[in-house]
């Protein structure tokens, strides 16, 4: 459990001279941990998640994932690294509208290596969508779409799952279903980093990191600032 899987050293992210999103951020995340990142809108938590997820690059500093310094990788290498190591769960699901639930999952397999329809079916069954394989996203509820998104994130067996407001667009019932799934994945050993506005959801994690103005505070020290903001 104490094995280090992600290390961020002096990460800075500037869009321009006046827009500093992340300021000298240092963070170590251990393998198998559930880390919740919380903070107000515009605090930099999604940017932080994107940098860890190889979707965005830091202006300065180093990011190590599994001893690979991803800040030194080019775009193609980052893409390859991402598909091997990271599963992404989006608030807005981002499913391809003309593909069925099964095909959306298989698409991730295709871009990773080879497709395995049986495995994709099993994964969808695991998230409770065995009966919705051939439905296109527009015929699925928000909760079901999010579960397809989770199945897609899981299909290539990534070590790290990054979830950005996974229940942000869901009602309470569907939100519970999705959170239970994430909880189950954590139990199975996945390293989970979850970005949320919701302190109650953040508390499901073993560790809560609060990001304010691009800097990290511990939850105990920053809680008052969150309330003020």
């Amino acid at each position, binding site marked *: 459990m104490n094995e280090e899987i992600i290390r961020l050293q002096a990460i800075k992210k500037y869009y321009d001279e006046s827009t500093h999103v992340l300021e000298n951020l240092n963070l170590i995340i251990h393998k198998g941990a559930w880390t919740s990142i919380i903070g107000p809108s515009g605090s930099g938590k999604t940017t932080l998640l994107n940098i860890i997820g190889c*979707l965005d690059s830091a202006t300065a500093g180093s990011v190590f994932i599994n001893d690979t310094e991803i800040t030194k990788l080019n775009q193609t290498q980052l893409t390859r690294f*991402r598909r091997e190591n990271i599963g992404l769960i989006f608030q807005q699901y981002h499913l391809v509208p003309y593909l069925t639930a099964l*095909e959306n999952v298989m698409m991730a397999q295709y871009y*990773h290596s080879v497709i395995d329809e049986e495995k994709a079916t099993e994964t969808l069954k695991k998230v409770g969508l065995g009966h919705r394989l051939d439905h296109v996203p527009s015929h699925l509820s928000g909760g079901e779409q999010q579960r397809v998104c989770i199945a897609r994130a899981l299909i290539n067996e990534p070590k790290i799952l990054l979830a950005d407001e996974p229940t942000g667009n869901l009602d309470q019932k569907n939100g519970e279903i999705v959170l239970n799934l994430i909880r189950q994945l954590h139990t199975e050993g996945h390293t989970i980093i979850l970005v949320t506005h919701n302190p109650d959801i953040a508390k499901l994690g073993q560790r809560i990191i609060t990001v304010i103005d691009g800097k990290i505070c511990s939850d105990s020290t920053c809680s008052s600032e969150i309330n003020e903001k």
Partner: protein
Amino acid sequence: MFLRILGKSILKRKSRIAIAVISVIIGSAIATALLSVSLDVSEKVGIEFRKYGANLMVVPKSDTIQVGFPGVEFGSVTEQRYINESDLWKIKTIYWRNNVLGFAPFLYQVVNVGEGAERQNVVLAGTYFDKNVVVLQPYSPHDNPMFITGIQKISPWWSVNGFWITDQNDTTNSMIGIKVAETLHLRIGDSYTIHYDEYVGDAINETSHNLTVIGIIETDGYEDNQIFVNLQVAQELTHRPGKIHTIQVSALCNACPVEAFVEEIQANIPYVEARTVKQLASAEMNILGKIENMMFLITIVGLIASALGVMTTMVTSVIERQKEIGLMKSVGAENKKIISLFLSEATIIGIIGGILGYLIGILLAQFIGFSVFSMSITPRFEVIPISIGLSVGVALLASILPVRRAVSIEPAIVLRGE
């Protein structure tokens, strides 16, 4: 999976793809039509020009005066210099013999028509109408030794009321120019007598010959003032057996220099001069060149319009699919996979547009053929790969900008909706 993504993405955006395909069809149809016409045009336009008469004139080497034909000097009819009819076949023994569409010999004589004070001078032209010429020593053993030629071959455009003389041994029928018919009040079926006065010293020997009008010619040229009979009739009347004044040759020489015809004919029949109808030849080449240039430009404009249509559609498609592309990248799609998706889509658009464009282009070519050349354009199957290749090329070329845009999409930005 690639084909599934490609197929479904195309089906999902049928109307947009249709617009791109239509754009390609337009360019492809124009290219196909003009290419088909262009491939045929040299031959068709050449034949079209041949309809306006011979483009080579063969006369005996002599002091000549210019009569009858703009830019061409005929041998003088008063000079006793002739070409031997027995040498006619030699015109079909030159290297470019297959480009000799036809030729017609002419023996001219001024004759009198009518009786007494009503007598009028008219030019009598003895010629071949539709004559079987035997090529005694063919250039190649594979050549057909028989060659049907005559005025019908070199002047098919003549407007004839009535009939052509078809029997090469017909000595009683004639075709007369419309002005002759008007002057002498002759109609089809009428008989008349021509008189030839030959001066022998101080004496005049008159020879007469009865003819019947079977056709009235209208060319708006000097032919309207002439009487046409079989060469044999003119030769017997004027006591010049086997003699002719000129030979008009219709040569199709778009791929060969006219000068080559001249040199070879003069080499084969040393006592003649062959002359090109320069105005016609240069006008022909000039117009042909201009037509081809115009077709090329229209094709280019068509293809550019086509490319712009495809590019606009593809750019719109990329904008609409930003999130989808960002998502594909986020789940691991490398740029080459994104590129191959869009280029495959462009290739399919190009192939469909190329095939449909070819079919429509063939119809367009027929329309151009009939409306401009009054003849059909032969569909050329070798145009199919060119049409499809051009269409695919245009579609791929038009995709470069959209694909660059797709490749530059940053998933982190598009997936958060910015």
